[in-house]
């Protein structure tokens, strides 16, 4: 277990760890709201629609974060309009946007000389290349997002639980959903360099899914979700380092983090199912006495 500490002597590993811990603070709470509002598919769509922004920024040598942010904002706005097309349902509209945006990204990347490696970095991230500027940007995004969510938490929960009553109370459901989408977009932007556009959705969904199978309360869910994201980031990063340095097995760090989270979900689901079986059996025994 020493590798959990020993892996972090190099500065680039320390920066990667700091970045992943910041992302855990960010994705832990957000993922709970995404899950409650059933926005997983929306989050997945946004991870794809930021791609062309990132690709354009990459080729004109601008900040990837700014490129991603512009593309994310554009797609959130387009989607809000797209959902008003009555004859095409929301899921289909998302696919239209995903396909359109993603293909623009691929076309742009394919015009570059180092197509394969560039695409790889954009799709799967480069956590070990995280620099001070990335960390500062993540801190700023985290402050904005966490402030927004803590301020709107009770409204988000109301809309997620009972949209009809929320509408009846005069809550601006559409604008609250737009706010949540923007928050998701910002989280994607912050997570981009660490895990890339394809795996970022796992960071936004899996921690809350782990938390949900462990508890039936929103408050504890947020804590468990954040903790799970943090542990997944730490263990995943250390494991990929240990594997490549000591055993010469190259594991992509971003993907290893997501893999640890996914295994964590499987374990949590299995343990909670076993507990439920046991408590059911116990209550049946009590009933039989």
């Amino acid at each position, binding site marked *: 277990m020493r590798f959990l500490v020993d892996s972090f002597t190099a500065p680039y590993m320390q920066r990667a760890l700091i970045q992943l811990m910041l992302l855990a603070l960010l994705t832990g709470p957000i993922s709970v709201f995404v899950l409650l509002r059933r926005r997983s598919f929306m989050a997945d769509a946004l991870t794809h629609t930021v791609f062309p922004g990132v690709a354009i920024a990459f080729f004109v040598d601008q900040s990837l974060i700014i490129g991603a942010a512009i593309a994310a904002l554009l797609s959130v706005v387009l989607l809000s309009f797209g959902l008003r097309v009555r004859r095409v349902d929301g899921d289909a509209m998302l696919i239209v946007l995903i396909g359109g945006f993603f293909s623009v990204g691929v076309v742009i990347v394919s015009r570059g000389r180092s197509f394969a490696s560039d695409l790889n970095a954009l799709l799967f991230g480069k956590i070990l290349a995280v620099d001070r500027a990335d960390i500062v940007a993540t801190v700023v995004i985290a402050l904005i997002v966490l402030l927004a969510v803590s301020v709107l938490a*009770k*409204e988000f*929960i*109301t809309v997620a*639980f*009972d949209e009809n009553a929320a509408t*009846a109370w*005069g809550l601006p459901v559409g604008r609250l959903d737009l706010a949540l989408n923007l928050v998701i977009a910002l989280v994607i932007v912050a997570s981009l360099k660490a895990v890339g556009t394809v795996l970022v959705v796992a960071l936004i969904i899996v921690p809350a899914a782990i938390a949900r199978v462990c508890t*039936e309360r929103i408050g504890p869910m947020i804590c468990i979700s954040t903790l799970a994201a943090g542990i997944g980031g730490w263990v995943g990063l250390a494991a990929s380092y240990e594997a490549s340095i000591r055993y010469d097995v190259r594991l992509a760090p971003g993907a290893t983090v997501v893999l640890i989270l996914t295994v964590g979900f499987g374990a949590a689901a299995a343990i909670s199912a076993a507990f439920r079986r046991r408590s059911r059996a116990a209550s049946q025994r009590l009933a039989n006495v």
Partner: protein
Amino acid sequence: MSPLSALRIDDLAVAFDDEIVLDGVTGTVAPGESLALIGPNGAGKSTLIRAILGLVEPVRGSLTVLGVAPAEARLDVAYVPQSDVLDSEFPISVAQVVLMGRYRRIGWLRRPQSSDRATAMAALEQVGLASRASDRFGVLSGGQRQRVLIARAIAQQAKLLLLDEPFNGVDSTTQELIVEVLAQLRADGVAIVMATHDLSVAHLACSDACLLNRHQIAFGPIVDALTAETLQVTYGGHAVELAGGSTIVLPHGH
């Protein structure tokens, strides 16, 4: 100024996509009165409720809620959905659901205070479910969930309650409990409007009735409005009076 009527509707017509879906509704509900909205599916009961909530604009006529335009009255109007439209897996406790009734009074950017929790707890007590406060909402029975949603409306301290089929899938004990709670609210001056297809419960729980089938067939004291003739017009079939005073309507051909 306390309004004379909780709800005043005058020759109301509502349209969806340029098609009139409800038309010619006229009537009032005073504080402490309870109105049953009766009619077949698609008759416009939900549309009328949406209009009272200010979610659809009338194309003709007028509608005042607690003396003001519907959208301005929302703080004092509580909507109680059918409990089965809510996700039973949602990780929320009974107490949290009831506390939700306070959120609009608490307002943006602020957190519930202990007084809000006390109000929510008292409301839960009123529907007889205080002992279930910390249970997850979804583990309760359908009837208990319905009572929790009524407690949420009580916690809101609304002056007008809109209920959508509150007796659907509810056992007779719960039905009695709900009727009793609604009677207490009426005694406190709360007005109630409920969409229901259960005519016998409507007689028990309501002072007035509005019969609809895309237009108003009757509106007034329940004994006058809810008759075999108006039911027949509303449902387009034969109304049959059963022993015990309840009435059922058979479709044509039976």
